[in-house]
């Protein structure tokens, strides 16, 4: 069997809490999975599901209660392995008294680059994340999106083979999300392994070779996003403008109105009929989209399926 | 083999070795710093008023701390057999300014500021100053009058003032008859061994501070010895009247049937007859040195 880029075996984390830390809460239970070399792996789950815990365990920011993990064949206890991995923390925050240039230079020093190499690498990175015009500004003046980009730059600064990104798209505007997506795709083209966590389904669908879904500290499903997340569309949504006095369109009874704009939901089968009616009423159609279940709904569905299975087993056992 | 256990053992051993090293080194440092310590006795702040302001609302606590320092200072000097107690006044001055109700500090000061070296600082005037301040701040505390009387009586040899102090104290409510008796006795006789004995005895029985009590005990021993010497001299005088010549040794008195056996001083050394056939403590007695000093005063 070939060696995966990241191999996780039975990894668990208990958090003590409450009075004198006497109570324990499992935030990760027996996680076993692999991320193959060169693949982009999406870690999906609602907030607090254990994605960040897993990533922090891999980065040895916290220590497992049980289990082991290897990255590039080396135990995560081995610090030298960190020379070939990059990490972007969730909602990254960096030394705000440094400029982007100084911060990247500071981090580059830990990778043993010579002064010339450092300045060359830092310049390339700043350009790559689109910050070369802002490199002389202290990070305290950076917006959230800019911080995210600096964070990305420091994660890939040293040409790592494995890149781990914790919620890389959160808090970004659409343009920013797109830039991050482009960077991830570029990393994939360059043959690197990328593990990133997100709670946004579309991000995972667009980028990942495979995804793992984690809920309540347990891995609930793993596979290509198509097979895992191909949920039936639950209907369509139309956004349209209608000026003047509306006629008696049947659609209007289902629509919510904001000024001259209307938003209506309807089953897919009625879509064309409705569009024809709107056309006849000379409405301006702005947007037609598929309504997909939110990730939370998907997770709820997973949990319920689990429960149903459990009770079925119970019944058959009797 | 358990990697972590080995790690832990090595670390534990290193920490232990480190602390042993620190301990040994500290002993060296302590000896080296004694040279510095002696020069270091001075108070950083000599002004009670400034001290009080700096203490904010915590003056009583600071007063207590200074009082502790006074005891430490005195104890330290005592242990080192040093006689120079010139810091005692500033420390007590600050302690009682910070907390004017620090009764024990006045008592302590009355004894050890006033008593002659090596027991005290030999500064009865400072003791009087301190006690007068104590009386002003705590007018109901009649024992300060007793202390004041003692200072006048023992160290300033001013029997009029001593008698007045006892009398003033005696007028306060709740005072024992002892105060009035002492006032009358001192007014009539000035200094007498019996009065001294009574004063020290009362202090010995009532003192709450152990240094003060110990000091009274030592004085009692000396006064008792003086009384015994006086009795021996009377016997020697009787011997001289009888034999027309002065006895030169204690055994002469015993042989003449005036004394049964060899009398011993409170420390257990036999008394001797010295110059001019006067009774005195044995040259080997630990009490002799202080007795000689007492004589000179």
């Amino acid at each position, binding site marked *: 069997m070939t060696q995966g880029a990241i191999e996780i075996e039975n990894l668990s984390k208990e958090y003590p809490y409450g009075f004198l830390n006497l109570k324990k809460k499992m935030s990760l239970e027996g996680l076993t999975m692999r991320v193959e070399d060169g693949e982009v792996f999406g870690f999906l789950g609602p907030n607090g599901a254990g994605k960040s815990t897993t990533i922090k365990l891999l980065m040895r920011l916290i220590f497992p209660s049980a289990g082991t993990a290897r990255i590039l064949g080396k135990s995560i206890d081995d610090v030298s392995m960190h020379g070939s*991995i990059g990490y972007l923390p969730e909602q990254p925050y960096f030394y705000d008294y440094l400029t982007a240039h100084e911060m990247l230079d500071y981090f580059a020093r830990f990778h043993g680059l010579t002064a010339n190499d450092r300045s060359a690498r830092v310049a390339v990175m700043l350009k790559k994340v689109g910050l070369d015009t802002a490199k002389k500004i202290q990070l305290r003046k950076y917006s959230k999106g800019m911080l995210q980009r600096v964070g990305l730059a420091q994660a890939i600064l040293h040409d790592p083979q494995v890149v781990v990104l914790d919620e890389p798209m959160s808090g970004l505007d659409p343009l920013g999300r797109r830039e991050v997506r482009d960077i991830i795709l570029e990393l994939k083209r360059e043959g690197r392994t990328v593990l990133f966590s997100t709670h946004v389904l579309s991000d995972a669908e667009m980028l990942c070779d495979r995804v793992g879904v984690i809920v309540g500290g347990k891995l609930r499903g793993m596979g290509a996003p198509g097979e895992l997340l191909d949920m039936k569309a639950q209907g369509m949504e139309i956004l349209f403008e209608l000026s003047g006095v509306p006629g008696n369109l049947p659609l209007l009874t289902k629509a919510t109105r904001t000024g001259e704009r209307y938003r209506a939901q309807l089953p897919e089968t009625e879509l064309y009929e409705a569009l024809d009616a709107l056309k006849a009423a000379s409405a301006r159609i702005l947007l037609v989209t598929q309504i997909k279940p939110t990730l939370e709904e998907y997770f709820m569905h997973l949990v319920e399926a689990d429960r149903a299975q459990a009770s079925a087993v119970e019944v058959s056992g009797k | 083999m358990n990697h972590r256990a080995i790690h832990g053992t090595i670390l534990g051993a290193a920490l232990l070795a480190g602390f042993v090293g*620190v301990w040994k080194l500290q002993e060296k440092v302590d000896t080296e710093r004694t040279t510095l310590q002696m020069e270091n006795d001075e108070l950083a702040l000599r002004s009670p008023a400034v001290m009080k302001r700096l203490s904010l609302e915590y003056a009583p606590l600071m007063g207590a701390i200074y009082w502790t320092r006074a005891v430490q200072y005195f104890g330290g000097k005592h242990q080192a057999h040093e006689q120079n107690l010139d810091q005692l006044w500033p420390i007590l001055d600050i302690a009682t300014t910070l907390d004017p109700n620090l009764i024990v500090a006045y008592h302590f000061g009355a004894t050890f500021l006033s008593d002659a070296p090596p027991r005290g600082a030999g500064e009865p005037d400072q003791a009087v100053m301190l006690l007068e301040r104590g009386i002003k701040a705590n007018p109901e505390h009649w024992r300060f009058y007793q202390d004041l009387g003692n200072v006048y009586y023992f160290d300033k040899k001013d029997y009029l003032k001593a008698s007045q102090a006892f009398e003033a104290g005696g007028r306060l409510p709740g005072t024992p008859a002892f105060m009035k008796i002492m006032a009358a006795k001192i007014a009539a006789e000035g200094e007498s061994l019996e009065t001294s004995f009574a004063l020290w005895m009362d202090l010995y029985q009532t003192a709450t501070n152990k240094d003060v009590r110990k000091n009274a005990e030592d004085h009692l021993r000396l006064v008792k010895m003086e009384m015994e010497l006086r009795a021996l001299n009377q016997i020697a005088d009787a011997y001289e009247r009888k034999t027309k010549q002065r006895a030169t040794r204690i055994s002469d008195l015993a042989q003449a049937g005036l004394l049964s056996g060899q009398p011993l001083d409170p420390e257990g050394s036999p008394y001797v007859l010295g110059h001019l056939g006067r009774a005195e403590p044995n040259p080997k007695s630990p009490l002799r040195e202080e007795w000689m000093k007492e004589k000179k005063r």
Partner: protein
Amino acid sequence: MRNVQTVAANTFREAVRDRVLYNLVFFALLMMGAAILVGQISIGIERDVIVSLGLTAISVIGIFIAIFLGVALVSREMDKRTLYALLAKPVKRWEFLLGKFFGLVMTLTVNTAAMAAGLYIALWSVNHALLKSDTYVLVAVYLILLKLALIVALALLFSCFTTPFLAILFTAGMYVAGLLAGDLRTVHGVELDPGTLRLMRGISYLLPNFENFNVMGAVVHGRGVSAAIAWQATLYAILYIAIVLMGAAVVFSRRNLK
């Protein structure tokens, strides 16, 4: 070692950009005011007043910086999670801690040296000359610096396992306890049973004896300080700091970051 150096340099940069060195302005004003005032009073102990005030200010300001900066610069990295990205680099946790320590000591050294220079300027302006005894002031400043390094180590240790507020409290408490440690050994005038006395003696040796670094009393009055005092204090500081940092490294390497 290169990693330690890198963290140390950055820590120094952080302290400077945090405007820590601004306290020097306060010190300069204090010394200037004192020099002028003392010149006016002229009671024969101008030099003593300048030296004692200067050394006290160097010590007090230094202690404040050592405690607050020592605690703040480590706990801030954990609170704001700036540490996360750093620890994902090939850096061991003890390297980070040691780097912080040396960076803070570097900051305090620069700060203390600047204050010492200010003190000498004030001395010169009062006496219009520097005496031979004034060289001992430098010894006193050196010992203060050793003391500050030890305080920083303690601050790092405490901030490794507790909240910043408690860490500040513990460090300050340890300093005061350490100052009084010597008295625990030489109690006079109190009667205690031998067991308690032995325990007190033991504790007094284990606490950091901060009195070891105090030669102010002698230096203020222009008296000399033996070389032995200086090198023993140096050895003591190095040994104690090593112990404390080792403890801190052990605690910190096992700590789960939130």
